[in-house]
Every structure is written in structure tokens, then in C-alpha cells.
């Protein structure tokens, strides 16, 4: 599945997007955040406070208990500051 990063999450991870293949057992957004946070220093920094980072599955806001099965695009980003 494709993962996209925005704003300071993007800067910390060092990528705008990537294709990932998490192991079985990574079932929810929360699981995915835990797994990503172990993929290197930048990821650890980006997700150091997982409660701050927001997430979307297929362009809809979701909470950390949302299941990722069937998702084609997952996004992580800081709280929004538009408007």
C-alpha cells in the first residue's frame, strides 16, 4: 500500500510518499504507526508523539483504531492549519 506524508511529518520521515509492505499483525493505523516508528531515526522522530499525528485512509480522516485492510492510500500529517 501507498503511504503519504505531509508537512513536518514529511520533513522528519524525509519522503513525500512510499510503498510499504507491513508484516501480518499490523491491522490498524495504530499498529502501522508503531511499526513505522521502528523503521529508522526519521520515522521515530515523526511519530515520537503518536497522539499528535493525524491519519487518513483513502482521503478520509480516521482514528488510530481504524483497520487498514483494503486501504490503497494511507496518509499521516500534523493537525491541520488551513482556513
Amino acid at each position: 500500500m501507498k503511504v503519504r506524508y505531509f508537512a513536518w511529518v514529511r520533513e522528519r520521515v524525509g519522503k513525500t510518499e512510499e510503498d510499504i509492505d507491513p508484516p501480518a499483525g499490523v491491522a490498524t493505523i495504530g499498529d502501522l504507526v508503531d511499526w513505522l516508528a521502528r523503521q529508522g531515526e526519521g520515522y521515530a522522530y515523526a511519530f515520537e508523539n503518536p497522539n499528535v499525528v493525524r491519519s487518513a485512509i483513502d482521503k478520509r480522516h480516521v482514528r488510530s483504531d481504524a483497520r487498514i485492510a483494503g486501504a490503497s492510500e494511507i496518509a499521516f500529517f500534523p493537525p491541520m492549519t488551513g482556513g
Partner: protein
Amino acid sequence: MSVIVRLQREAFDAASEVAALKRSRTDIGAVVIFTGICRADEDGEPIAALNLEHYPDMAEAEIGRHIEAARQRWPLLGVTVIHRYGRIVPGEGIVLVVTASTHRQAAFAAAEFLMDYLKTRAPFWKQVEKPGGKTSDKIWVEARASDDTAAERWKPAPTKREPAN
């Protein structure tokens, strides 16, 4: 019922958007126009510009969903939302919301509702560019708790839970 959503790098002109929305309608009794403008300072510090990053497809979908929610809630005759991205200098508009209805209450309420949601749910992120232009002087704007509070007031009674936070 005219619904227009546009994400664009260019400046917008409120007057021509309102003219387009009103065109050939004579049942509109109230139009509310909100313009959010880039100020010359942020928290008392001078700024050179704001740089807005966004998640294009999701921004358009999310704004569309909130317009649909507003239409369910108030008898609207037209809605236009334009949100800019990229570099915006002080004095320029960032966001435009236009709502039209027969009476003023619906137009005011829908415009406020849309703005409160744009602030907290539309995937845009503002970065402040300080005068001087060093990379170290680019700072992401922090979300304001008061914006979350403003959006909360529109929530329906918590009988059914939405999937998102």
C-alpha cells in the same frame, strides 16, 4: 443550487465569484462572504509570507463533504469555497467562503460552519516564512485549540459515532 470548490495557487476575486453565484437567480435574499487574509505578523512576530502545503485530492473531497453537510442542515441556494496553496504574502486572501440563501440566518450559519471545519479538518498546513529567507526561519504554524472548540459546537448529539476523530 450552485456549488463550486476550487484549490488554486492564484489569488481569487471575491466579487467575480459572488457575481457567478448570483447569476440569473432572483430568489437569493442574503449573501455572506468570508475572506481569510494573510496578516503581516503571526503571534506578534513579523512574517514575510505563508507557504501552504496541502493534500490535493483529500482537500477537495473533504471540503465537498462539509458543503454537503451544510446543505443538509441549512436551506442554501449557493456555496463557493476557494482555498489557496503555495506562497501567500501579507494582505492577500488565503480562503474564500461564499454562502447564499433566502434569509440571512442560514447564510451566516453555513459560512461559519464551513470556516470552522476548514480550519480543523481540511488538509492544509501553513508554514511561516520569516523576513530574511533562511531555511531555518521556516516554522510550521501550530493548530489552535480555539479552532477545535469552534468546530466542536456544530457536532450533533453523540448518538452515533463517526469513524474519524
